[in-house]
């Protein structure tokens, strides 16, 4: 996006326009890509460039924001993530063992088909996955008023029995869009759980990302990110599920507490380093009597003690 100052009158190439359009789409705040797309379309006033940019940017945005789409004809939702992606437009919902075919730009699920056997984990792995899904689902429904979650097997899904390693990704996504209140936000957590058979350990890695945007007569955004690690012992599917759910609950609760602490530190510490509420003198600035400053300056100049 280099702006070479005087590139002025040179018309941009379609390729450059497309890259700019993609940049705007990918940098849309949570839940706002459709609004950005609408404005962008009218700024570009070139349908071909817009369509091309949209078809490239929407899939990336949808996956990184882990958007949740309703699957028609079923009671389930599907999460659009890189873990559930089978094909560009096909996303697996392991809970219902269905595959959603989605339209990225419209952000809807158009069709649903049952997942093929080879798209699903082995019976051995599925037992662990299913138990964990149940525990995480319980936790998410308690902790998030509008949370969606899913557990994917992302490595070693064909393991037939003990002696093999495999890896899950637990994904939690909660979004709130209230454009009428000029406010949007999203909470995304990704937990990688490595089942290490030889060490009889489960290694846990969490990445949490929270964003909020408030834009009534202004534009203020929060970005918060955190990573953490933990581990537990390899047990039965049910016991693994319970201890992983507890680990996730513990870390996410702690993280929320630290976010709240960051907010409560703002007024008296963090924000004060930018601008104080009151001057160092603790009284409003004496605008009616600024002569005192020039007087004291003159004196210090005369005495040679000025800066």
């Amino acid at each position, binding site marked *: 996006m280099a702006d070479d100052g005087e590139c002025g009158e040179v018309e941009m190439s379609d390729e450059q326009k497309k890259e700019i359009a993609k940049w705007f789409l990918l940098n849309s705040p949570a839940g706002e890509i459709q609004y950005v797309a609408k404005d962008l379309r009218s700024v570009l006033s070139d349908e071909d460039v817009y369509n091309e940019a949209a078809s490239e940017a929407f899939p990336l945005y949808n996956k990184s924001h882990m958007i949740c789409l309703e699957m028609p004809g079923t009671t389930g939702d599907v999460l659009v993530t890189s873990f559930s992606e089978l094909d560009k437009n096909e996303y697996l919902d392991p809970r219902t063992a269905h595959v959603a075919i989605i339209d990225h730009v419209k952000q809807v699920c158009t069709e649903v088909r049952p997942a093929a056997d080879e798209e699903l984990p082995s019976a051995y792995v599925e037992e662990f996955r299913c138990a964990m899904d149940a525990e995480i689902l319980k936790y998410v429904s308690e902790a998030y008023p509008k949370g969606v979650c899913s557990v994917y097997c992302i490595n070693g899904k064909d393991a037939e029995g003990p002696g093999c390693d495999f890896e899950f990704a637990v994904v939690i996504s909660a979004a709130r869009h209230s454009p009428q209140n000029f406010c949007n936000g999203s909470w995304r957590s990704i937990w990688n759980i490595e089942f290490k058979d030889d060490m009889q350990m489960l290694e846990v890695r969490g990445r949490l990302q929270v964003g909020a945007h408030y834009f009534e007569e202004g534009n203020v955004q929060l970005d918060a990110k955190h990573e953490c690690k933990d581990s537990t012992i390899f047990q039965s599917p049910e016991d693994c599920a319970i201890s992983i759910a507890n680990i996730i609950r513990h870390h996410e609760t702690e993280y929320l507490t630290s976010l*709240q602490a960051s907010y409560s530190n703002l007024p008296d510490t963090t924000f004060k380093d*930018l601008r104080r509420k009151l001057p160092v003198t603790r009284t409003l600035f004496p605008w009616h009597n600024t002569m005192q400053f020039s007087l004291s300056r003159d004196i210090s100049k005369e005495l040679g003690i000025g800066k």
Partner: protein
Amino acid sequence: MEAALGLMRRIHPKHSETALSALLGLLPHLSSDLLSQVDQPLQVLCDVDSGKEFILCEYNRDADSYRSPWSNKYHPPLEDGPYPSSELRKLEIEANEVFSIYRDQYYEGGISSVYMWEDENEGFVGCFLIKKDGSKTGHGRRGYLQEGSWDAIHVIEVGPDEEGITHYCLTSTVMLSLTTNDQSSGTFSLSGSIRRQMNMDLSIADGHLCNMGKMIEEMESKLRNSLDQVYFGKTKEMVCTLRPPAEVLPMRLPES
């Protein structure tokens, strides 16, 4: 133009410079409108005569040069660039001196510059700028911020004197960003910009500088307060809507 401003309202404040240059590329015919309506983070140059830094903006720019409020010279040097009248320059000098004391009392550091120029209707315009780097490595006294910046732009239109009363119209923008980062809580970053306007009719008995200063001080306090209370507060509310705080949840102890 409306769509372009719509994009600027949504794009992350951290990306506003990139976004603006992208829009300038897409909409070259709207460049002057865009440049005047979209506020950008302030840039700084060093005055070669005084060794002091000054802030750059549209109002001290001519061609590619910027006039320093300290030496009154253009950087890089410029033949026949515009200057304020000698009377107005006197007020500009005084305003710069007083405003830097004001800045020091509220900001404990930072840079400020004031520019003035005559406008078409017998009045004049003053532009008061403050830039503060509040990070650990900058002027952050307390050392809490990994990254922290505050840019304030106050443009105040001063009307002609009408029987001892003058109309003042102040438009202020604050752009800020702050990031804290530590092992236990990760990175926490808030950034944003807001713009407000204030109109007042005041007696000139106290002098223009006193009137302008009081308005700016009141406005800055209001903006700081709304950022702190309203804007940051709304994002916090959003976080607590997404995942309500633990007190209201049944806590389960980890079964080890």
